[in-house]
């Protein structure tokens, strides 16, 4: 250690001064790692070397393929069941049940079973997937929340509505009867329609009304027919006379 001693002049021998200033110079070459000056440290940090990343060889990473998720077995089964439901049953009604209890469900199922209407539950997602592919895609917005499917082979709308009215929580949202979508009011009016045979009978009678009238006329006694024809002639002549008089007057 080089110590330059700047000592004051010792006036007398043996007398040391009261204050002695000692100056140590800091060395550049040290045995330990000398801490950098702060500015130099900053500069070194900023100007660190960033080596270029080597490009990955072509076979290193798997290619970004589109992930095709296979439908699980349950989904497939449910879809098959749904397809069968839509194929076999003529009437499918969609209802929302806002948390009815188990007893209510049992009662409802029992009452509906008397009219051969069965109650089906399907997960909404599966139903939506299925409907978007099929013809009945307009039923898709109905399937939100807790929905129940009421299906039957014969369109027994009246009985369905009566039974459902008894239980308060079930609200019918819409139905698909004979491949035609119906709203709730449509279902009501459908239930009020008379049965198919009656309607067909009415249509046939309406079309054949005129011909049946003439047939009835002809089948009656001929005097009646002749009287009618004479009356008709009188009416015709009366009309022509009045037409002639009005023509002359004008």
């Amino acid at each position, binding site marked *: 250690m080089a110590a330059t001693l700047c000592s004051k002049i010792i006036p007398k021998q043996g007398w040391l001064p009261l204050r002695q200033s000692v100056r140590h110079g800091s060395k550049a070459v040290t045995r330990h790692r000398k801490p950098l000056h702060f500015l130099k440290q900053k500069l070194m940090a900023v100007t660190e070397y960033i080596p270029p990343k080597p490009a990955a060889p072509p076979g290193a990473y798997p290619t970004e393929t589109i992930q095709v998720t296979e439908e699980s077995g349950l989904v497939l089964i449910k879809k098959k069941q749904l397809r069968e439901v839509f194929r076999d049953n003529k009437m499918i009604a969609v209802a*929302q049940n*806002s948390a*009815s*209890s188990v007893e209510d469900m049992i009662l409802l199922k029992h009452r509906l079973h008397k009219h051969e209407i069965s109650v089906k539950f399907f997960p909404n997602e599966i139903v939506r997937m299925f409907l978007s592919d099929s013809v009945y895609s307009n039923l898709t*917005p109905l399937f*939100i929340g807790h929905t129940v499917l009421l299906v039957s082979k014969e369109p027994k709308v009246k009985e369905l509505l009566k039974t459902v009215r008894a239980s*308060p929580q079930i*609200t019918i949202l819409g139905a698909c009867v004979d491949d035609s979508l119906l*709203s709730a009011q*449509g279902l009501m009016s459908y239930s009020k329609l008379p049965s198919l045979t009656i309607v067909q009978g009415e249509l046939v009678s309406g079309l054949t009304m005129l011909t049946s009238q003439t047939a009835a006329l002809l089948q009656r006694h001929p005097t009646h027919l002749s009287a009618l024809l004479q009356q008709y002639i009188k009416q015709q002549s009366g009309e022509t006379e009045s037409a002639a008089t009005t023509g002359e007057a004008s």
Partner: protein
Amino acid sequence: MAASSKSRVVLKAVKKIAVQFCPFESNVRATREFLALVGSEKVRATNMNCEVTCVVKHDMSEPVVDIMYVDGERLVMKGAKLTSQEMMSAFQSRCFAKDPQAKVSGKK
């Protein structure tokens, strides 16, 4: 959150709840969820006199929830742009304002 609010819903001050919506519209989700929450057995058991009716229309109208209170006040909520939680909180705050004792006893 829905479950906790469901158990606390007390309908003592409510006379009638009428819900109407058109299911083929796209904005009915909140109204339907509200109906499911309010029409459940537990909630209806708090007040057996309260009727919960639902009308399903098909005229592209807005979904509306009409609540009639025992003291004649009406709360009309148009559910087209609301969420079910907002509707529940509004409904519950009204009920609580009407009848704070019932709710407190329910909590206990």
